[in-house]
Protein backbone atom coordinates (compact mmCIF):
# COMPACT_ATOMS: atom_id res chain seq x y z
CA UNK A 1 0.00 0.00 0.00
CA UNK A 2 1.20 3.48 -0.79
CA UNK A 3 2.08 5.77 2.07
CA UNK A 4 0.94 9.33 1.68
CA UNK A 5 2.23 12.00 3.99
CA UNK A 6 -0.33 14.06 5.86
CA UNK A 7 -1.38 17.47 4.68
CA UNK A 8 -1.19 16.52 1.02
CA UNK A 9 -4.76 17.44 0.13
CA UNK A 10 -4.97 21.20 0.06
CA UNK A 11 -7.21 21.16 -2.98
CA UNK A 12 -10.52 19.40 -2.54
CA UNK A 13 -10.88 16.96 -5.44
CA UNK A 14 -14.23 16.59 -7.15
CA UNK A 15 -14.03 12.79 -7.00
CA UNK A 16 -12.98 12.17 -3.42
CA UNK A 17 -9.92 9.97 -3.44
CA UNK A 18 -9.23 8.21 -0.19
CA UNK A 19 -5.88 9.00 1.26
CA UNK A 20 -4.12 6.07 2.89
CA UNK A 21 -1.66 5.73 5.76
CA UNK A 22 -0.36 2.20 6.35
CA UNK A 23 -3.21 1.05 4.17
CA UNK A 24 -5.79 2.76 6.36
CA UNK A 25 -8.04 5.57 5.06
CA UNK A 26 -7.19 8.98 6.50
CA UNK A 27 -9.54 11.92 6.82
CA UNK A 28 -9.22 15.37 8.27
CA UNK A 29 -11.65 16.56 10.92
CA UNK A 30 -11.24 20.27 11.67
CA UNK A 31 -7.49 20.06 11.23
CA UNK A 32 -7.14 16.82 13.18
CA UNK A 33 -5.96 13.63 11.53
CA UNK A 34 -8.41 10.72 11.76
CA UNK A 35 -7.70 7.12 10.75
CA UNK A 36 -10.43 4.63 9.82
CA UNK A 37 -9.09 1.07 10.11
CA UNK A 38 -11.07 -2.14 9.84
CA UNK A 39 -11.18 -4.40 12.84
CA UNK A 40 -8.41 -6.53 11.33
CA UNK A 41 -6.16 -3.51 10.78
CA UNK A 42 -6.92 -1.97 14.18
CA UNK A 43 -4.33 -3.55 16.52
CA UNK A 44 -1.47 -3.72 13.96
CA UNK A 45 -2.11 -0.06 13.11
CA UNK A 46 -1.87 1.08 16.74
CA UNK A 47 1.26 -1.02 17.18
CA UNK A 48 2.77 0.49 14.02
CA UNK A 49 1.91 4.03 15.13
CA UNK A 50 3.42 3.35 18.53
CA UNK A 51 6.70 2.35 16.95
CA UNK A 52 6.62 5.61 14.99
CA UNK A 53 6.40 7.76 18.09
CA UNK A 54 2.77 7.65 19.21
CA UNK A 55 3.89 6.37 22.58
CA UNK A 56 0.93 7.40 24.63
CA UNK A 57 -2.65 6.29 24.14
CA UNK A 58 -4.35 9.21 25.76
CA UNK A 59 -7.94 8.13 25.61
CA UNK A 60 -10.36 5.52 24.38
CA UNK A 61 -14.10 5.98 24.27
CA UNK A 62 -17.15 4.71 22.46
CA UNK A 63 -19.96 6.45 20.60
CA UNK A 64 -23.42 5.09 19.87
CA UNK A 65 -24.71 6.32 16.50
CA UNK A 66 -28.11 4.62 16.67
CA UNK A 67 -29.95 7.90 16.06
CA UNK A 68 -27.36 9.37 13.65
CA UNK A 69 -26.88 6.67 11.02
CA UNK A 70 -25.49 9.01 8.32
CA UNK A 71 -22.03 9.09 6.77
CA UNK A 72 -20.71 11.45 9.51
CA UNK A 73 -17.47 12.25 7.75
CA UNK A 74 -16.37 8.70 6.99
CA UNK A 75 -14.27 8.11 3.87
CA UNK A 76 -15.65 6.16 0.92
CA UNK A 77 -15.18 2.45 1.51
CA UNK A 78 -15.74 2.66 5.25
CA UNK A 79 -19.27 1.64 6.09
CA UNK A 80 -20.89 3.41 9.04
CA UNK A 81 -21.94 1.09 11.85
CA UNK A 82 -23.90 1.69 15.01
CA UNK A 83 -20.95 1.89 17.38
CA UNK A 84 -17.64 3.61 17.08
CA UNK A 85 -14.56 3.11 19.22
CA UNK A 86 -12.44 6.25 19.25
CA UNK A 87 -8.79 6.13 20.33
CA UNK A 88 -6.67 9.25 20.76
CA UNK A 89 -2.92 8.83 20.38
CA UNK A 90 -0.23 11.32 21.28
CA UNK A 91 3.29 11.65 19.92
CA UNK A 92 5.41 13.56 22.44
CA UNK A 93 8.52 13.99 20.33
CA UNK A 94 6.83 15.42 17.25
CA UNK A 95 4.07 17.08 19.28
CA UNK A 96 1.21 15.71 17.26
CA UNK A 97 -1.97 13.78 17.81
CA UNK A 98 -3.91 11.30 15.77
CA UNK A 99 -7.26 9.69 16.25
CA UNK A 100 -8.63 6.30 15.28
CA UNK A 101 -12.33 5.78 14.60
CA UNK A 102 -13.23 2.12 14.44
CA UNK A 103 -16.68 1.09 13.21
CA UNK A 104 -18.26 -1.64 15.33
CA UNK A 105 -21.49 -3.33 14.17
CA UNK A 106 -24.43 -3.68 16.53
CA UNK A 107 -24.90 -7.46 16.41
CA UNK A 108 -21.21 -8.18 16.88
CA UNK A 109 -19.88 -5.46 19.18
CA UNK A 110 -16.52 -7.13 19.76
CA UNK A 111 -13.21 -5.33 19.37
CA UNK A 112 -9.73 -6.71 20.03
CA UNK A 113 -8.19 -5.17 23.13
CA UNK A 114 -5.31 -2.72 23.01
CA UNK A 115 -4.21 -3.66 26.54
CA UNK A 116 -1.09 -5.44 25.28
CA UNK A 117 -0.12 -2.45 23.12
CA UNK A 118 -0.98 0.29 25.60
CA UNK A 119 -1.55 -1.02 29.17
CA UNK A 120 -2.85 2.43 30.08
CA UNK A 121 -6.06 1.81 28.14
CA UNK A 122 -7.21 -0.83 30.60
CA UNK A 123 -9.51 1.46 32.58
CA UNK A 124 -10.84 3.24 29.48
CA UNK A 125 -11.75 -0.07 27.84
CA UNK A 126 -13.48 -1.18 31.00
CA UNK A 127 -15.40 2.09 31.07
CA UNK A 128 -16.45 1.74 27.42
CA UNK A 129 -17.54 -1.83 28.09
CA UNK A 130 -19.44 -0.73 31.17
CA UNK A 131 -21.30 2.18 29.61
CA UNK A 132 -21.74 1.02 26.01
CA UNK A 133 -21.51 -2.76 26.16
CA UNK A 134 -18.69 -3.11 23.66
CA UNK A 135 -16.65 -6.25 24.35
CA UNK A 136 -12.87 -5.94 24.25
CA UNK A 137 -11.61 -9.36 23.28
CA UNK A 138 -8.50 -10.40 25.22
CA UNK A 139 -8.86 -7.77 27.96
CA UNK A 140 -7.48 -9.19 31.23
CA UNK A 141 -10.37 -8.08 33.39
CA UNK A 142 -13.45 -6.81 31.61
CA UNK A 143 -15.62 -6.04 34.62
CA UNK A 144 -17.80 -3.03 35.28
CA UNK A 145 -15.89 -0.04 36.57
CA UNK A 146 -18.26 2.87 37.16
CA UNK A 147 -21.54 1.03 37.67
CA UNK A 148 -22.26 -1.65 40.30
CA UNK A 149 -21.51 -5.25 39.30
CA UNK A 150 -25.20 -6.19 39.28
CA UNK A 151 -26.29 -3.32 37.03
CA UNK A 152 -28.35 -4.35 34.01
CA UNK A 153 -27.83 -2.51 30.72
CA UNK A 154 -25.39 -0.01 29.29
CA UNK A 155 -26.57 3.53 30.00
CA UNK A 156 -24.70 5.41 27.26
CA UNK A 157 -26.55 3.47 24.56
CA UNK A 158 -29.08 5.65 22.85
CA UNK A 159 -31.91 3.16 23.35
CA UNK A 160 -31.33 3.18 27.08
CA UNK A 161 -33.85 5.40 28.83
CA UNK A 162 -32.70 8.44 30.71
CA UNK A 163 -34.80 7.20 33.61
CA UNK A 164 -36.18 10.43 34.91
CA UNK A 165 -37.45 9.89 38.42
CA UNK A 166 -40.17 12.35 39.41
CA UNK A 167 -38.97 14.35 42.39
CA UNK A 168 -41.47 15.08 45.13
CA UNK A 169 -40.24 18.25 46.74
CA UNK A 170 -42.90 18.23 49.41
CA UNK A 171 -45.43 15.68 50.47
CA UNK A 172 -48.74 17.56 50.15
CA UNK A 173 -50.59 15.16 52.46
CA UNK A 174 -48.03 15.10 55.29
CA UNK A 175 -48.19 18.75 56.22
CA UNK A 176 -51.87 19.09 55.51
CA UNK A 177 -51.76 21.38 52.47
CA UNK A 178 -49.88 24.54 51.70
CA UNK A 179 -48.10 26.43 54.40
CA UNK A 180 -49.84 29.49 55.82
Amino acid at each position, binding site marked *: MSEVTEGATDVVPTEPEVELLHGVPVTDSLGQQVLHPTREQYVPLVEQLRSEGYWMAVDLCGVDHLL*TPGRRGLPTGTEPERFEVVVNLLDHRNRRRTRIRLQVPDGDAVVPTLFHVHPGLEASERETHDLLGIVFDGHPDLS*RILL*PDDWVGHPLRKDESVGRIPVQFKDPTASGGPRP
Partner: protein
Amino acid sequence: MSQVVDPTAVDGPDDVVDLAVLDEARVRLSTDDAVLRLSATEAEERSGYQPPTDEGLGERMIMNMGPQHPSTHGVLRLVLELDGEEITRSRPVVGYLHTGMEKTAEQLTYLQGPTNVTRMDYAAPLFNELVFSMATEQLLGIEVPERAQWIRTLMCEVNRISSHMLFMATNGMDLGAVSMMLYGWREREELLRFLEQVTGLRMNHNYIRPGGVAADLPDGWEEHLDGVLSVLPERLEEFDTLMTGQPIWRDRLQGVGVITAEEAVSLGATGPILRSTGYAWDLRRDLPYLCYDQLDFDVIVGTHGDSFDRYSIRLAEIRESIRIVRQCMDKMPSGDYRIQDKKVTPPPRARIDESMEALIHHFKIFTEGFKVPEGEVYVAVENPRGELGCYLVSDGSSHPVRMHIRAPSFVNLQTLPHLMQGSLIADTVAIVSSVDPIMGDVDR
Protein backbone atom coordinates in the same frame (compact mmCIF):
# COMPACT_ATOMS: atom_id res chain seq x y z
CA MET B 1 14.71 17.28 44.07
CA SER B 2 12.86 19.15 41.43
CA GLN B 3 14.71 21.02 38.76
CA VAL B 4 13.78 23.59 36.19
CA VAL B 5 13.92 22.69 32.53
CA ASP B 6 14.49 25.29 29.86
CA PRO B 7 11.14 25.62 28.08
CA THR B 8 12.86 26.09 24.75
CA ALA B 9 14.62 22.74 25.01
CA VAL B 10 13.02 20.63 22.31
CA ASP B 11 14.62 17.34 23.24
CA GLY B 12 12.91 17.09 26.62
CA PRO B 13 11.04 13.77 26.58
CA ASP B 14 13.36 12.12 24.10
CA ASP B 15 16.29 11.93 26.50
CA VAL B 16 14.42 10.06 29.17
CA VAL B 17 12.98 7.06 27.35
CA ASP B 18 13.19 5.32 24.01
CA LEU B 19 11.08 2.68 22.37
CA ALA B 20 13.09 -0.32 23.62
CA VAL B 21 12.71 0.85 27.23
CA LEU B 22 9.01 1.44 26.62
CA ASP B 23 8.59 -2.05 25.18
CA GLU B 24 10.22 -3.53 28.25
CA ALA B 25 7.99 -1.51 30.56
CA ARG B 26 4.91 -2.51 28.59
CA VAL B 27 5.67 -6.21 28.95
CA ARG B 28 6.35 -5.75 32.65
CA LEU B 29 3.16 -3.76 33.23
CA SER B 30 0.89 -6.13 31.35
CA THR B 31 2.32 -9.28 32.91
CA ASP B 32 3.27 -8.27 36.45
CA ASP B 33 0.96 -8.99 39.31
CA ALA B 34 0.64 -5.55 40.86
CA VAL B 35 -3.04 -5.37 40.03
CA LEU B 36 -5.41 -7.48 42.09
CA ARG B 37 -7.90 -8.51 39.45
CA LEU B 38 -10.99 -9.05 41.55
CA SER B 39 -14.35 -7.49 40.86
CA ALA B 40 -15.86 -5.34 43.58
CA THR B 41 -18.18 -8.16 44.64
CA GLU B 42 -15.44 -10.79 44.67
CA ALA B 43 -13.23 -8.53 46.74
CA GLU B 44 -15.97 -8.22 49.31
CA GLU B 45 -16.59 -11.96 49.43
CA ARG B 46 -12.93 -12.83 49.72
CA SER B 47 -11.91 -10.16 52.21
CA GLY B 48 -9.98 -11.45 55.17
CA TYR B 49 -7.47 -14.24 55.63
CA GLN B 50 -6.22 -16.09 52.53
CA PRO B 51 -4.55 -19.45 53.14
CA PRO B 52 -1.35 -20.30 51.26
CA THR B 53 -1.99 -21.32 47.65
CA ASP B 54 -0.55 -24.06 45.48
CA GLU B 55 1.40 -21.54 43.41
CA GLY B 56 3.68 -20.88 46.36
CA LEU B 57 2.02 -17.73 47.64
CA GLY B 58 2.23 -17.54 51.39
CA GLU B 59 -0.50 -16.47 53.74
CA ARG B 60 -2.20 -13.32 52.57
CA MET B 61 -4.87 -10.99 53.74
CA ILE B 62 -7.32 -9.10 51.58
CA MET B 63 -8.40 -5.83 53.07
CA ASN B 64 -10.87 -3.23 51.91
CA MET B 65 -9.86 0.34 52.57
CA GLY B 66 -12.58 2.87 51.99
CA PRO B 67 -14.75 4.05 50.32
CA GLN B 68 -15.37 5.94 53.54
CA HIS B 69 -11.88 6.80 54.68
CA PRO B 70 -10.58 10.28 55.47
CA SER B 71 -7.43 9.88 53.39
CA THR B 72 -9.18 8.86 50.19
CA HIS B 73 -10.42 12.39 49.45
CA GLY B 74 -13.92 11.35 48.64
CA VAL B 75 -15.05 7.87 47.91
CA LEU B 76 -12.12 5.87 46.60
CA ARG B 77 -12.05 2.26 47.69
CA LEU B 78 -8.80 0.32 47.67
CA VAL B 79 -8.71 -3.44 47.78
CA LEU B 80 -5.33 -4.41 49.18
CA GLU B 81 -3.72 -7.83 49.30
CA LEU B 82 -1.26 -7.85 52.15
CA ASP B 83 1.65 -10.02 53.10
CA GLY B 84 2.12 -8.90 56.68
CA GLU B 85 2.66 -5.17 56.49
CA GLU B 86 3.57 -5.23 52.83
CA ILE B 87 1.21 -4.62 49.93
CA THR B 88 1.55 -7.34 47.31
CA ARG B 89 -1.35 -6.51 45.00
CA SER B 90 -4.00 -3.86 45.03
CA ARG B 91 -6.75 -2.32 43.02
CA PRO B 92 -8.67 0.92 43.16
CA VAL B 93 -12.44 0.45 43.01
CA VAL B 94 -14.24 3.51 41.73
CA GLY B 95 -17.71 4.53 40.63
CA TYR B 96 -19.24 5.62 43.92
CA LEU B 97 -19.75 9.15 42.62
CA HIS B 98 -20.88 8.14 39.14
CA THR B 99 -23.86 10.25 38.15
CA GLY B 100 -23.82 9.73 34.39
CA MET B 101 -22.67 13.22 33.51
CA GLU B 102 -21.70 12.16 29.99
CA LYS B 103 -25.25 10.94 29.46
CA THR B 104 -26.61 14.13 31.01
CA ALA B 105 -24.55 16.17 28.55
CA GLU B 106 -26.46 14.56 25.69
CA GLN B 107 -29.71 15.98 27.11
CA LEU B 108 -28.35 19.50 27.54
CA THR B 109 -27.71 22.16 24.90
CA TYR B 110 -24.21 23.41 24.24
CA LEU B 111 -25.03 26.52 26.22
CA GLN B 112 -26.03 24.45 29.24
CA GLY B 113 -23.02 22.15 28.85
CA PRO B 114 -20.58 24.07 31.08
CA THR B 115 -22.97 23.87 34.07
CA ASN B 116 -22.73 20.12 33.77
CA VAL B 117 -19.01 19.62 33.15
CA THR B 118 -17.94 22.14 35.78
CA ARG B 119 -19.07 19.67 38.44
CA MET B 120 -16.66 16.95 37.33
CA ASP B 121 -13.28 18.05 38.67
CA TYR B 122 -14.65 20.20 41.45
CA ALA B 123 -11.21 21.35 42.58
CA ALA B 124 -10.43 22.76 39.12
CA PRO B 125 -13.85 23.55 37.63
CA LEU B 126 -12.72 26.26 35.22
CA PHE B 127 -10.62 23.78 33.27
CA ASN B 128 -13.64 21.59 32.63
CA GLU B 129 -15.60 24.56 31.33
CA LEU B 130 -12.61 25.61 29.25
CA VAL B 131 -12.12 22.28 27.52
CA PHE B 132 -15.82 21.91 26.75
CA SER B 133 -16.05 25.48 25.44
CA MET B 134 -12.93 25.09 23.31
CA ALA B 135 -14.31 21.90 21.76
CA THR B 136 -17.65 23.58 21.01
CA GLU B 137 -15.92 26.62 19.52
CA GLN B 138 -13.79 24.44 17.30
CA LEU B 139 -16.90 22.71 15.98
CA LEU B 140 -18.57 26.08 15.45
CA GLY B 141 -15.46 27.38 13.75
CA ILE B 142 -15.40 30.58 15.78
CA GLU B 143 -12.49 32.43 17.29
CA VAL B 144 -13.08 34.08 20.66
CA PRO B 145 -11.83 37.67 21.17
CA GLU B 146 -8.35 38.27 22.50
CA ARG B 147 -9.46 39.65 25.84
CA ALA B 148 -11.59 36.55 26.44
CA GLN B 149 -8.54 34.37 25.76
CA TRP B 150 -6.49 36.32 28.28
CA ILE B 151 -9.26 36.26 30.88
CA ARG B 152 -9.52 32.50 30.44
CA THR B 153 -5.76 32.08 30.84
CA LEU B 154 -5.73 34.24 33.95
CA MET B 155 -8.69 32.54 35.58
CA CYS B 156 -7.37 29.06 34.85
CA GLU B 157 -4.02 29.84 36.39
CA VAL B 158 -5.68 31.25 39.51
CA ASN B 159 -7.69 28.05 39.61
CA ARG B 160 -4.51 25.98 39.22
CA ILE B 161 -3.02 27.69 42.27
CA SER B 162 -6.17 27.10 44.31
CA SER B 163 -6.25 23.46 43.23
CA HIS B 164 -2.61 22.92 44.19
CA MET B 165 -3.32 24.67 47.51
CA LEU B 166 -6.01 22.08 48.10
CA PHE B 167 -3.42 19.40 47.41
CA MET B 168 -0.98 21.04 49.84
CA ALA B 169 -3.67 21.08 52.52
CA THR B 170 -4.83 17.50 52.09
CA ASN B 171 -1.36 16.11 51.52
CA GLY B 172 -0.20 17.74 54.73
CA MET B 173 -3.19 16.48 56.63
CA ASP B 174 -2.77 12.93 55.32
CA LEU B 175 0.81 12.81 56.49
CA GLY B 176 0.18 14.29 59.90
CA ALA B 177 1.24 17.89 59.22
CA VAL B 178 -2.16 19.05 60.39
CA SER B 179 -1.29 22.74 60.58
CA MET B 180 -0.60 22.53 56.84
CA MET B 181 -4.23 21.69 56.33
CA LEU B 182 -5.24 25.00 57.88
CA TYR B 183 -2.65 26.97 55.91
CA GLY B 184 -3.59 25.34 52.62
CA TRP B 185 -7.29 25.95 53.13
CA ARG B 186 -6.61 29.55 54.17
CA GLU B 187 -4.64 30.35 51.01
CA ARG B 188 -7.14 28.51 48.85
CA GLU B 189 -9.98 30.47 50.37
CA GLU B 190 -8.32 33.76 49.43
CA LEU B 191 -8.02 32.61 45.84
CA LEU B 192 -11.60 31.38 45.85
CA ARG B 193 -12.66 34.78 47.10
CA PHE B 194 -11.13 36.27 43.98
CA LEU B 195 -12.86 33.68 41.79
CA GLU B 196 -16.09 34.54 43.59
CA GLN B 197 -15.61 38.23 42.92
CA VAL B 198 -15.27 37.54 39.22
CA THR B 199 -17.67 34.65 38.64
CA GLY B 200 -20.11 35.05 41.51
CA LEU B 201 -19.45 31.57 42.88
CA ARG B 202 -16.66 29.89 44.81
CA MET B 203 -16.95 26.67 42.85
CA ASN B 204 -18.87 25.34 39.83
CA HIS B 205 -18.53 28.76 38.24
CA ASN B 206 -20.12 28.28 34.81
CA TYR B 207 -17.96 31.24 33.87
CA ILE B 208 -16.17 30.07 30.73
CA ARG B 209 -18.83 29.45 28.09
CA PRO B 210 -18.79 28.78 24.37
CA GLY B 211 -18.01 32.12 22.75
CA GLY B 212 -16.05 33.69 25.59
CA VAL B 213 -16.67 34.17 29.28
CA ALA B 214 -19.90 34.97 31.13
CA ALA B 215 -18.94 38.45 32.30
CA ASP B 216 -16.11 40.91 32.09
CA LEU B 217 -13.64 41.23 34.95
CA PRO B 218 -15.25 43.44 37.63
CA ASP B 219 -13.95 46.83 38.72
CA GLY B 220 -11.09 46.54 41.15
CA TRP B 221 -10.09 43.03 40.11
CA GLU B 222 -6.45 44.02 39.71
CA GLU B 223 -6.13 45.36 43.26
CA HIS B 224 -7.86 42.31 44.68
CA LEU B 225 -5.72 39.85 42.73
CA ASP B 226 -2.55 41.81 43.42
CA GLY B 227 -3.32 41.70 47.13
CA VAL B 228 -3.72 37.92 47.03
CA LEU B 229 -0.65 37.31 44.89
CA SER B 230 1.61 39.50 46.99
CA VAL B 231 1.01 37.49 50.15
CA LEU B 232 1.45 34.10 48.48
CA PRO B 233 5.26 34.03 48.05
CA GLU B 234 5.89 34.48 51.76
CA ARG B 235 3.24 31.90 52.57
CA LEU B 236 5.01 29.48 50.21
CA GLU B 237 8.22 30.16 52.15
CA GLU B 238 6.32 29.07 55.25
CA PHE B 239 5.33 25.87 53.49
CA ASP B 240 8.98 25.24 52.71
CA THR B 241 9.92 25.76 56.35
CA LEU B 242 7.08 23.62 57.57
CA MET B 243 7.49 20.75 55.13
CA THR B 244 10.05 20.78 52.33
CA GLY B 245 13.13 20.92 54.51
CA GLN B 246 11.82 18.84 57.37
CA PRO B 247 13.58 15.49 57.86
CA ILE B 248 10.35 13.83 59.00
CA TRP B 249 8.48 15.08 55.94
CA ARG B 250 11.26 13.96 53.63
CA ASP B 251 11.57 10.53 55.19
CA ARG B 252 7.85 10.06 54.83
CA LEU B 253 7.85 10.89 51.09
CA GLN B 254 11.25 10.29 49.55
CA GLY B 255 11.52 6.95 47.80
CA VAL B 256 7.84 6.22 48.48
CA GLY B 257 5.61 5.35 45.54
CA VAL B 258 8.26 5.38 42.83
CA ILE B 259 7.34 5.21 39.15
CA THR B 260 9.62 5.38 36.12
CA ALA B 261 9.08 7.54 33.05
CA GLU B 262 8.46 4.56 30.78
CA GLU B 263 5.87 3.14 33.17
CA ALA B 264 4.11 6.49 33.41
CA VAL B 265 4.01 6.87 29.62
CA SER B 266 2.76 3.31 29.12
CA LEU B 267 0.05 3.79 31.72
CA GLY B 268 -1.08 7.06 30.18
CA ALA B 269 -0.25 9.03 33.32
CA THR B 270 0.00 12.78 32.80
CA GLY B 271 0.56 15.90 34.84
CA PRO B 272 2.77 15.96 37.94
CA ILE B 273 2.98 12.13 37.97
CA LEU B 274 4.58 12.07 34.52
CA ARG B 275 6.74 15.12 35.17
CA SER B 276 8.00 13.74 38.51
CA THR B 277 9.90 11.12 36.50
CA GLY B 278 11.89 13.76 34.64
CA TYR B 279 9.73 13.55 31.53
CA ALA B 280 9.14 17.17 30.55
CA TRP B 281 5.66 17.16 29.04
CA ASP B 282 3.28 20.00 29.64
CA LEU B 283 0.55 20.80 27.12
CA ARG B 284 0.82 24.49 27.96
CA ARG B 285 4.31 24.51 26.52
CA ASP B 286 4.26 21.62 24.07
CA LEU B 287 0.87 22.01 22.38
CA PRO B 288 0.02 25.59 23.38
CA TYR B 289 -3.58 26.75 23.58
CA LEU B 290 -5.08 30.05 24.80
CA CYS B 291 -2.24 32.58 25.27
CA TYR B 292 0.42 30.25 26.68
CA ASP B 293 2.69 30.72 23.66
CA GLN B 294 3.01 34.41 24.63
CA LEU B 295 3.86 33.71 28.25
CA ASP B 296 7.14 32.99 29.91
CA PHE B 297 7.13 30.10 32.36
CA ASP B 298 9.10 26.97 33.20
CA VAL B 299 8.00 23.37 33.11
CA ILE B 300 8.92 21.78 36.42
CA VAL B 301 10.19 18.21 36.39
CA GLY B 302 11.48 15.86 39.06
CA THR B 303 14.09 13.13 38.86
CA HIS B 304 13.09 10.25 41.11
CA GLY B 305 9.40 9.85 40.35
CA ASP B 306 8.56 9.52 44.04
CA SER B 307 5.95 11.16 46.24
CA PHE B 308 8.35 13.87 47.30
CA ASP B 309 8.95 14.92 43.69
CA ARG B 310 5.24 15.07 43.06
CA TYR B 311 4.85 17.26 46.13
CA SER B 312 7.68 19.62 45.19
CA ILE B 313 6.54 19.87 41.57
CA ARG B 314 3.14 21.10 42.71
CA LEU B 315 4.72 23.56 45.10
CA ALA B 316 6.95 24.88 42.32
CA GLU B 317 4.03 25.01 39.90
CA ILE B 318 2.25 27.38 42.27
CA ARG B 319 5.22 29.74 41.90
CA GLU B 320 5.14 29.37 38.11
CA SER B 321 1.41 30.06 38.05
CA ILE B 322 1.94 33.22 40.06
CA ARG B 323 4.41 34.31 37.39
CA ILE B 324 1.86 33.54 34.68
CA VAL B 325 -0.94 35.40 36.44
CA ARG B 326 1.31 38.44 36.87
CA GLN B 327 2.09 38.41 33.16
CA CYS B 328 -1.61 38.07 32.33
CA MET B 329 -2.35 41.11 34.49
CA ASP B 330 0.28 43.12 32.63
CA LYS B 331 -0.76 42.00 29.18
CA MET B 332 -4.55 42.03 29.62
CA PRO B 333 -5.87 43.71 26.47
CA SER B 334 -9.08 45.67 26.22
CA GLY B 335 -11.95 44.54 24.05
CA ASP B 336 -14.87 42.18 24.12
CA TYR B 337 -15.07 39.44 26.71
CA ARG B 338 -17.21 37.30 24.41
CA ILE B 339 -17.79 36.97 20.72
CA GLN B 340 -20.51 39.22 19.32
CA ASP B 341 -22.18 36.52 17.30
CA LYS B 342 -25.92 36.60 17.87
CA LYS B 343 -26.22 32.93 16.98
CA VAL B 344 -23.89 31.89 19.80
CA THR B 345 -23.92 34.47 22.59
CA PRO B 346 -26.98 36.29 23.90
CA PRO B 347 -27.22 40.00 23.08
CA PRO B 348 -26.39 42.55 25.80
CA ARG B 349 -29.26 43.06 28.25
CA ALA B 350 -29.81 46.69 27.22
CA ARG B 351 -30.36 45.74 23.58
CA ILE B 352 -33.29 43.48 24.48
CA ASP B 353 -35.38 46.48 25.56
CA GLU B 354 -34.96 48.31 22.30
CA SER B 355 -34.59 45.67 19.59
CA MET B 356 -37.15 43.04 18.63
CA GLU B 357 -34.42 41.13 16.83
CA ALA B 358 -32.26 41.04 19.96
CA LEU B 359 -35.21 39.74 21.95
CA ILE B 360 -35.76 36.95 19.43
CA HIS B 361 -32.09 35.98 19.45
CA HIS B 362 -32.09 35.97 23.24
CA PHE B 363 -35.22 33.82 23.33
CA LYS B 364 -33.91 31.37 20.72
CA ILE B 365 -30.57 30.89 22.43
CA PHE B 366 -32.07 30.14 25.82
CA THR B 367 -34.96 27.98 24.65
CA GLU B 368 -33.52 26.01 21.74
CA GLY B 369 -29.82 26.63 22.10
CA PHE B 370 -27.58 27.27 19.12
CA LYS B 371 -26.97 24.68 16.46
CA VAL B 372 -23.47 23.31 16.04
CA PRO B 373 -22.30 21.98 12.63
CA GLU B 374 -21.88 18.24 12.22
CA GLY B 375 -18.45 16.96 13.12
CA GLU B 376 -16.26 15.53 15.85
CA VAL B 377 -13.30 17.00 17.65
CA TYR B 378 -10.89 16.22 20.48
CA VAL B 379 -9.48 19.10 22.50
CA ALA B 380 -7.10 18.81 25.44
CA VAL B 381 -5.83 21.22 28.06
CA GLU B 382 -3.36 20.89 30.93
CA ASN B 383 -5.40 20.63 34.11
CA PRO B 384 -3.59 20.64 37.51
CA ARG B 385 -3.73 16.83 37.39
CA GLY B 386 -2.75 16.22 33.79
CA GLU B 387 -4.33 16.12 30.38
CA LEU B 388 -8.01 16.95 30.48
CA GLY B 389 -9.59 16.12 27.13
CA CYS B 390 -13.01 16.54 25.63
CA TYR B 391 -14.22 14.47 22.69
CA LEU B 392 -17.32 16.07 21.26
CA VAL B 393 -19.52 14.68 18.48
CA SER B 394 -22.20 16.82 16.88
CA ASP B 395 -24.90 15.89 14.38
CA GLY B 396 -25.80 19.48 13.54
CA SER B 397 -28.42 19.91 16.26
CA SER B 398 -28.23 21.93 19.46
CA HIS B 399 -27.39 18.92 21.65
CA PRO B 400 -24.18 16.89 21.42
CA VAL B 401 -24.46 13.28 20.22
CA ARG B 402 -21.63 12.36 22.54
CA MET B 403 -19.56 14.27 25.02
CA HIS B 404 -16.70 12.30 26.49
CA ILE B 405 -14.31 13.74 29.04
CA ARG B 406 -10.84 12.27 29.27
CA ALA B 407 -10.41 12.66 33.00
CA PRO B 408 -6.79 12.85 34.20
CA SER B 409 -7.65 11.54 37.66
CA PHE B 410 -9.36 8.49 36.17
CA VAL B 411 -6.37 7.50 34.06
CA ASN B 412 -3.81 8.42 36.72
CA LEU B 413 -5.48 6.08 39.21
CA GLN B 414 -4.18 3.15 37.15
CA THR B 415 -0.68 3.91 38.44
CA LEU B 416 -1.76 3.24 42.05
CA PRO B 417 -1.23 -0.56 42.13
CA HIS B 418 2.20 -0.12 40.56
CA LEU B 419 3.15 2.66 42.96
CA MET B 420 2.00 0.67 45.96
CA GLN B 421 3.41 -2.76 45.15
CA GLY B 422 5.99 -3.74 47.75
CA SER B 423 5.39 -0.70 49.91
CA LEU B 424 4.19 -0.74 53.49
CA ILE B 425 0.55 -0.32 54.30
CA ALA B 426 1.41 2.84 56.23
CA ASP B 427 2.64 4.43 53.00
CA THR B 428 -0.68 3.88 51.22
CA VAL B 429 -1.99 7.18 52.45
CA ALA B 430 1.13 9.03 51.28
CA ILE B 431 0.90 7.46 47.84
CA VAL B 432 -2.82 8.00 47.28
CA SER B 433 -2.40 11.56 48.41
CA SER B 434 0.50 12.18 46.01
CA VAL B 435 -1.56 10.97 43.05
CA ASP B 436 -4.14 13.62 44.04
CA PRO B 437 -7.25 12.05 42.53
CA ILE B 438 -10.46 14.04 42.48
CA MET B 439 -13.24 11.51 42.67
CA GLY B 440 -15.77 13.68 40.88
CA ASP B 441 -13.45 13.63 37.90
CA VAL B 442 -12.82 9.89 38.17
CA ASP B 443 -16.45 8.85 38.31
CA ARG B 444 -18.18 11.61 36.34
